[in-house]
């Protein structure tokens, strides 16, 4: 380090890396944070980013164009998209009921919304399979109508509905709760019908939250493993999700292939979330305080 760097020229404000503070402990806290994050997150991620290229671009391309990989990615992203889209109206309805109506046991019902967060995924997986499998309570009923609800993409979709719902509810709920009641009343005094109030005032206000909830549910669904593999059936090309394909490639000691699939998932998810973010920014521009 040069002396000049230590003694900033007077009158020329030097851009600092860190603002001065009277609080102590920054070096210790920051040092620990960076070291820990480096070892637990950055180093492993570096492996994920770098290892696919061991066999060159050609290797990556070969892996990505395998039928099985394409089918798995399509399945994972497709079912996740459908499930997250379904969860948007479902989640809005649940959040609406929980914030707008007073009924006995409301707080208990509210607490149960978080169950998919708290229930280990493997438990959810075998339980859902037991329900929607051919001999399950609901699976049997659906089977009578010729609808198979397990060991196929429908089963995957059901599992993803289960794990995604709380994301939508929990992002929309606080917004509905905090919605300025005066704004709805204003619409009312200006002559809006109930439906118009919902469509023109409430919905635009919760739209950003709905989109966030959607993207959280989607991101979680794409990577979901435990609750899906038991009900999925795991038939190559038909009901094999991308995370399972990673496991299979690892079992075959195809590290580069596994890393390629993992990286591809990460990149596609990232791209999707980026798109959602742009949508959010666009909506935010349209007037948020």
């Amino acid at each position, binding site marked *: 380090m040069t002396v000049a760097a230590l003694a900033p020229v007077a009158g020329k404000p030097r851009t600092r890396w*860190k603002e001065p503070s009277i609080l102590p402990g920054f070096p210790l806290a920051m040092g620990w944070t960076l070291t820990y994050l480096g070892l637990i997150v950055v180093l*492993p991620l570096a492996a994920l980013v770098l290892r696919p290229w061991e066999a060159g671009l050609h290797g990556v391309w070969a892996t990505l164009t395998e039928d099985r990989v394409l089918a798995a990615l399509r399945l994972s992203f497709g079912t996740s998209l459908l499930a997250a889209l379904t969860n948007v109206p479902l989640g809005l309805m649940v959040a609406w009921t929980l914030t707008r109506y007073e009924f006995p046991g409301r707080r208990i019902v509210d607490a149960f919304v978080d169950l998919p967060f708290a229930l280990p995924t493997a438990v959810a997986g075998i339980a859902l399979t*037991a329900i929607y499998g051919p001999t399950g309570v609901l699976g049997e009923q659906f089977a009578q109508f010729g609808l198979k609800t397990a060991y196929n993409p429908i089963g995957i979709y059901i599992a993803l509905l289960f794990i995604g719902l709380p994301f939508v509810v929990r992002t929309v709920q606080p917004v509905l709760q905090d919605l300025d009641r005066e704004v709805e009343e204003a619409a009312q005094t200006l002559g809006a019908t109930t439906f118009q109030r919902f469509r023109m005032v409430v919905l635009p206000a919760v739209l950003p939250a709905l989109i966030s909830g959607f993207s959280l549910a989607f991101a979680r669904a794409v990577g979901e493993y435990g609750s899906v593999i038991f009900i999925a059936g795991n038939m190559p090309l038909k009901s094999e999700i991308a995370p399972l394909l990673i496991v299979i490639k690892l079992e075959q000691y195809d590290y580069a292939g596994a890393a390629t699939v993992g990286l591809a998932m990460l990149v596609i998810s990232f791209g999707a979330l980026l798109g959602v973010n742009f949508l959010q920014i666009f909506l935010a521009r349209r007037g948020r305080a």
Partner: protein
Amino acid sequence: MNPTLRLPGLAPLMLAATLAVLGVLIVLPLGVVFHQALAKGLGAYIEPLTHPDALHAIRLTLTVAAISVPLNAVFGVAAAWAIARFEFKGKSLLVTFIDLPFSMSPVVSGLVWVLLFGAQGWFGEWLRDHDIKIIFATSGLVLATVLVTLPFVARELIPLMQDQGADEEAAALTLGAGGWTTFRRVTLPNIKWALLYGVLLCNARAMGEFGAVSVVSGSVRGVTTTLPLHVEVLYNDYEFVGAFAAASILAGLGLVTLVLKTVLEWRHSGELSAGRRH
């Protein structure tokens, strides 16, 4: 409650639909776990839980959580102190990295450790030469769990401490308290419920994690199977009662977590980060 738009005519319909959705989608699976576990009576329920493999799985699960949770709690406090109490460049990048494990597939969170420490991993050869085993061993389970649960505590503390601001700490310092005393007597009491909340969620996930640990475990029955992996092993062997019995313990853990979490949200809502207030 505010007298805003309530769609009064729709109330019964909305309530019924909500209860139906939550009932079928969320409560039913929980009920099924206990129903299946007890399907062949109490004896058949207890028996698989006392099997040495099951007991080992429980012990292993507790061990992994006992190492991972404190590590991530300390990290969470340190990260929150650095991020919520100081202004520096690249803060949002740092926060992004802390949140990253939430948006990674659990399988990827396991995969990355295999890429580093597996037989053909970057450090695989070195580890073999020095006779150190990480993958297919407890340390691998810990690493995978630590990665998956890393954001939990930090995510609770950072927004709370940002909301609270540094005024109280600054006041303590002007009154002559040292840095450590200030942290212990001012900061810690202010964040204790949020810390507990974060630890609770972190622990639930650590004990229940499946995807990440399944990648690094190799599922050697009775050696590297945590309780969730034990569930899978039994299920795949068609030992359904045993699988659901083990699952019922995990479901119980989930329920206890849910109750404690809800109690924290009701009792100490003002001392949790804004998103947790009810």
